[in-house]
Structures are given as C-alpha cells and as structure tokens.
C-alpha cells in the first residue's frame, strides 16, 4: 500500500479506492437507471471513464484546428 501511495500519490490512490467502493456498492445493492441500458452492470463507471477519454481525444484533435497564436485577434 505504501509503495502504491509513493508511486501514485495520496489523492490518486484515494480516488482509486473510491472507485472500488462504488463498484462494490453496486454489487451489494440494486441500482437501476432511468433507462434500461443503464441497468447494465457498472454502466455509469464505464460510461464515465470512456466519455472522458473520448472528450480528450476530440479536444486534442480540435486543438490542431482551432488553436491560434495568443495575439491572433490583435493583429
């Protein structure tokens, strides 16, 4: 555990810990969503993680298109 904290930092490990807790909680209780698709096991977790990766992917590619010099409008 100490090794993990040293390697990844306290906050990162606590987030990981929270992730595991909420996955376990889903196994204990019965979670149901607003739509039937959401009732799939661990759906919000997978959806949240993938959404963020996709958003980053799109944002980074948009950067090539939309990023200009800071004084772009001042010229």
């Amino acid at each position, binding site marked *: 555990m100490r090794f993990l904290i040293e390697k990844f930092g306290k906050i990162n490990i606590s987030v990981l810990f929270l*992730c595991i807790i909420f996955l376990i909680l889903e196994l204990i209780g019965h979670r149901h969503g607003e739509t039937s698709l959401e009732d799939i096991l661990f759906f919000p977790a997978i959806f949240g993680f993938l959404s*963020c990766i996709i958003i980053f992917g799109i944002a980074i590619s948009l950067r090539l298109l939309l990023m*200009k010099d800071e004084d772009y409008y001042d010229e």
Partner: protein
Amino acid sequence: MIIGALLIPFLPHIIRQIYMLVLILISAYALTLGFGTHTKITLMDIEFILFQSDPLTLPFAIIFHVAAVLNVMYGAHVKHWNQHMAIMSYSGAAIAAVHAGDLLTLFVWWEATAITSVFLILAGKTKRAYGAAFRYLIFQIGSGMFLLAGAILLMSENGNAEFKNFDINSLYGQLIFIAFGIKAAFPLLNGWLQDSYPEASEIGTVALSSFTTKLAVFCFAKSFAGTEILILIGAIMTFYPMFFAIIENDLRRVLTYCLNSQLGFMIVAIGIGTELAINGAVAHAIVHILYKGLLFMGMGAVLYRTGTCKASELGGLFKYMPITAICTIIGAVSLSAFPLFSGFVSKTLILSSLGKEGLVFFYFMLLFSSAGVLIYSGIRVPFFAFFANKSNIESKEAPLNMIITMISASILCILIGVLPSYFYNFLPYQIHYQPYDFSHIVGQMQLLVFSALAFIFLWHFKIYPSEINSTILNSDWIFRKMIPGVCLPLLDLVNKLNQKLYKFLEYLFERTRNIFANTMIKNKVFDREVGQDTLIIVQLFIILLVFIFVWKIYL
C-alpha cells in the same frame, strides 16, 4: 434599484456599500406582494405591465436578489463608484425584466441590462476589454431589436404584446425566439459570451455570470416551455463547449464555456416542458447562479491577487490562498453534481425528466456532458490554479470581503445540496421528488469517480495536453474574421470594378460626344460651334429617349 443607483457616485465608500444593501432590501420587499399584476401604466394607448408576479418569476426574483447581495459584498474592496453603480443598475434591470408583464416593458429592461452591464466589461481596462465590450453591446442591442420587432408584430396581430407562451411557428414567435436565443448563447450565437465575460473586471465577471443568461432562461421558460426544438438546441449546447473548455488556457474563459454547457441543461429541460422538467430548469438556473458565481469569485480573487487567470502561468496557489481554494473546490464539486452539493439536486431533476419522457438519446448526451464537466471544469479549474506545481507566483489570501462572500456562497451550495426538499418548495410547481436514493447516488458517484480516474490516468501517463498560451477560435471567429475576411476583399473588388466601370463610361461618353459633335458640325446642323453644355443636354435628351423607347418595348 436603478433610480437609487443614481445616488451611488455621491456617497462615500462605506456608506455606499450599506446604501446598496438597503436598496436591495427595499427591492426585495416586492417579493412579499404575492402573485398577480401589481403595477400598470397606460402611455399612448399602450398598456405597460411594469410589475407582475407568478410562480415562475418568484424563484428567479429571489435568486437575483441573493446574487445582487453577493455581488455587492464581493465588490466591497473596490473604492471607485463606477462598477458599483453598474452592478446595482444591472441587477435592478434584470429583476425588473423578470417582473415585466408585456414585451415592450421587457424590451426596455432587456436593453437596460445590456447597457448597464457593458460598463463592467469596460472596467477590465484593457484594449481587448474595450473591443469585447463593443462586440458585446452589438450582440445585446441586436437581440433587443429582434425582441422589439417580434413585440411590434405581435401587437399588430393581437392588439397587445402580453408576455406569455408564444407559438414558435409564427413570425413574431420566431423573432422573439432568436432574441432570447442570442442572450441564452445558443450555438453559433454564443461568441459574445466567451469573448466578453473573461475580459471584464474581477467583480464584473461575477455579476455578468449571474444575470444576463439566466434572464434569457427565464424568458424561454415563460414563453417557449415545451417547444421541442429547444431539446435539440440545448443538447448541442451542453455538448460542444466541453471540447473548447479543455483546450482553453484562460480559466475564466473555461468557466464561460462551462456556463454555456450548463445553460444547455436548462434549455433542454425547458424544451421538455413537463412540470418536473421546468422545475429542473429553474432549480438548475438557481444553483448555477450560486456555484458559477462562486467559481468566478475564486478565479476573480486569483486574478486580483496575481494579475492573471491563465492556466499556463498559475499553479501552487493553495498554500497562499487556502480559503479561496477550498471555496472554489466547493463550487467545482457543486458544478460536477456530487451528492450533497447543489448541482446534484437540480441535475437529477433534469435527467429524470428526460428519462421519464423516454428521450434516451438526449439523456445520454446530457449524461456524457455530466461526466465531462468534472474534468474540463470541476477538476481542471481548481487543479491548475491552486495545485499543479509549476508557477513561482507568490500571493496572499483574497481580501476579507471576498472571503466572506465566497464562504456565504459555499454555505448556500451545501445547504441546497443537503436540504433539497426545502429548496424544491421555491420552485414553480409542487413536486415530490427524492434525489437521494441508492440508484442516483451510486450511479452518479460511479460516473464521477471514474471520470476523475480518467483524468488521473491521462495526467499520470502525460497524455493530458499541456497548457499553452493561445487563442482558441470560437463562433465569434465568424463575425470577427470570416465575415470581414470575405466581405472586405469583396468590397474592395466591387470598389475596383466600380472605378473601372466609371472610367469606361467616361470614355464612352467622351467618345459619343465627339462623334456627335463632329456629325453635327459636318452636316451643318448648327451654323456655328456649339458649346459643350448644349451638346451634353442634347446628348442626355437622346439617351433619355432611347431609354424610354427600350422601356416601352421590353416592359
């Protein structure tokens, strides 16, 4: 409040602050008058309903008063009167607009919010701020013109311009829709928002974020509840500003993208139009004013102390400004809709109403945005300002008045999150909704902690894009670069063509005159040399005859 604001320049600093709070208190008395039409005047046979109140106006009026108090407290360190006067009259105009009972009265206050608030952008006192203020004014006044046109059309059809539910299929409805849409920063009409808000002064941005866009949300809720196109527009609004927010460097501009995205949630809810959804939209507008105000306050404090809000230049400020950092984190956590914080109790209302209506596609779009908001704003803003250890900026804690305001706003955010049932009592419709059940909490927490995990994953493996000083192009590019870029060369071309045509005509004129004169003299039409003037008159007369001849034959 607006009339009272006229006195502000003449009062000394401390008395001015107390006077402003008293003004808001007097204005708040109107909240106790109950529902119905209270003040009407008739001018030139037109009836102006100046003050009317109903279940929808009340929550907006309450939160606008709360926001006005927070703004006065937050700006108490500024000794000059100009911004105080602007904030007071701006809040007054927004509150008056909410209570307007007809479109002409609304138009007056609509423009008043634009004119009073532009001084807050000018208070940024940079060349960019002056430019942004000018563009802001063009958009706001333009929106007012659409509103006025709609109101006049409505009057010509109905005989009155009552502010009520409008039909989107009518021309006046469409004009009013565009007017509200500009102020609500619809896609492609949103450029003014990201352009102007971050250029305002540190207290100006906080005030701006509270009123203008929420006034538009109120107007949509009142006039276009249940209009289906709003669901699509709102969903697009929640969606696309995320990508801009991630790559934007100025943290206040990141917050304006985030504001735009959250407005989308409200617009979707208004588009659904059920009681649950309208409650969701109103609830989200209220909590959004508080937590977004709080985030802007945090960034305003950073700007005030360090002189910059750029992610590439900030970092490690937590040790200097711990209270500001904690308050900003509370704002960020509320924004991300963590359970026990204000965002959660309003966002679940909207998501539930979408789920209940079976709008699955839009539901997932909004869920996608809910996951994204944590990383592009919830984590990013506090992280780059207060934690990412890379800047050597030294600072001190924000002024006392800012701290007190931020703590007050934080307490409100937490109270709403912890006691949702009391909060729901202020909403337009009485509902029995329980946001805190096992499914909501576990589902939302999974969504959020795994989004956070994604951020950590990207940061740890250095995939996260580094912060670079840059300008990210937004829809205002169309108005600032594309249209001038296309129109100016076109105008130039037209100008050149015009000159060439003129020269050609001149040559033609000269030539025909010479031929004409020679023929006349040769055939001895005139006995003597005739003057130029006579020739020109004869020539014009012939041209006129030809013209009439052609006209008669062909037309």
